[in-house]
């Protein structure tokens, strides 16, 4: 994905932050190492960032740092999932999942009432897509299966969920650390969802 890049200097200027802040956030792992892209320019090496991502992240940090400490923020951004355990009732009560979707999930997945983070993520994704009306029930089940089979990977890596349809047949893919993905003509991408973002959303809702 050829993203638009922004140099460190421009970033500091646009976001109105100092070198000190940027390095501090980097140290606290609020900004992932992969975003620091080194390139040589005519003045020597310079560091660039993926523009959209970094600006969004800095915006988030700046709005949330009033209420949360930097360490708490770091927990929120890290894909390493925190120790979260909830029951199905709690999830419904906290408005993360509607009770209808929860019932459906429990019926399909046939697990217990105890939810650790990967199951919370699965049910959250299901809720999100079903409620938005983008997918139907069968596709939801297919999607759950994909998520369930790859739980280990999702926890550690940057996963992205893609659902496509062509001539009425749908299929579901999980991209791991993928840069880009291309489809043949006539394929409709129904859903493209970053799981890391979903995790952040869940964490933001739970905090």
């Amino acid at each position, binding site marked *: 994905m050829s993203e638009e890049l922004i140099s*460190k200097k421009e970033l500091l200027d646009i976001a109105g932050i100092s*070198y*000190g802040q940027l*390095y*501090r956030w980097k*140290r606290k792992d609020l900004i992932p190492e992969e975003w620091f892209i080194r390139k040589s320019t005519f*003045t020597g090496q310079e560091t660039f960032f993926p523009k959209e991502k970094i600006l969004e992240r800095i915006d988030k940090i700046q709005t949330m740092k009033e209420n949360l400490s930097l360490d708490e923020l770091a927990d929120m951004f890290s894909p390493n999932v925190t120790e979260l355990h909830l029951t199905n009732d709690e999830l419904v009560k906290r408005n993360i999942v509607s009770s209808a979707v929860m019932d459906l999930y429990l019926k399909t997945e046939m697990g217990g009432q105890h939810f650790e983070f990967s199951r919370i993520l699965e049910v959250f994704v299901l809720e999100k897509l079903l409620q938005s009306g983008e997918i139907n029930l069968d596709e939801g089940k297919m999607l759950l299966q994909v998520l369930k089979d790859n739980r280990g990977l999702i926890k550690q890596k940057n996963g992205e969920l893609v659902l496509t349809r062509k001539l009425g047949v749908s299929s579901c893919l999980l991209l791991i650390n993928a840069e880009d993905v291309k489809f043949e003509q006539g394929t409709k991408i129904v859903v493209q969802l970053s799981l890391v973002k979903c995790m952040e959303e869940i964490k933001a809702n739970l905090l």
Partner: protein
Amino acid sequence: MDTKKRGDLNINGFGSANGGQFHQVTIKGKGTVNSDIECVVFDCNGSGTVNGNVITNKAKVNGNGKIKGHLECKMLTVDGTAKIENNLNVENFKVAGKASIGGRVKAEEISIKGRLTVEGDCEADSFKAESHFMIGGLLTADHVDIKLFGECKAKEIGGQTILINHKPALMGLFKHFIQTQLETELIEGDKIELENTKAAVVRGNQITIGANCEIGLVEYTDELSVDKKATVKDSRKV
């Protein structure tokens, strides 16, 4: 963690032991521990080797300590020679001898009077050094305060305030033999004061370039002052 019921591990003289969970681990003499250790206090007075990782509260190396893994602790004091072959995670890191770390260092406070070698990045809230050091990656801290004693190297330095001073050698006789200079590719900070520094690029808001500096390019936003004895090839206000 219930640590009261744990036993101690003592090696006096020549010996080796397996790792595990302990309250206190003391190595006096020449000791080898063959696997991972988790303990409250780790004390190495002679020549100790751990063939594994160490997780502890307080670690102290007075003689010669070697950890062939990573070390995680609240406080690490090195008064002798310590070698950690992997990463070091520590809150308070004090060196009055020689420490070399094969991986990266993550700390809150680092204070060094001696010699430090880090292969990877070195990160801290505050970094104070009166020493020689070699950092293979990025040195970053809110406050970087360095008094140069010998030849120092870091690939990059970044932080809020960066002060690099030259400390006059005590033994004037040797002054000409030992080069006291810091060499780096890039320095970035809000407030930067340099002496005896050789850098390709320096970027910041308030920059003071002191004596004996050799800088390729300075980019500043607020202020720049350059000493007569310094050479700056190019400078621009951005």
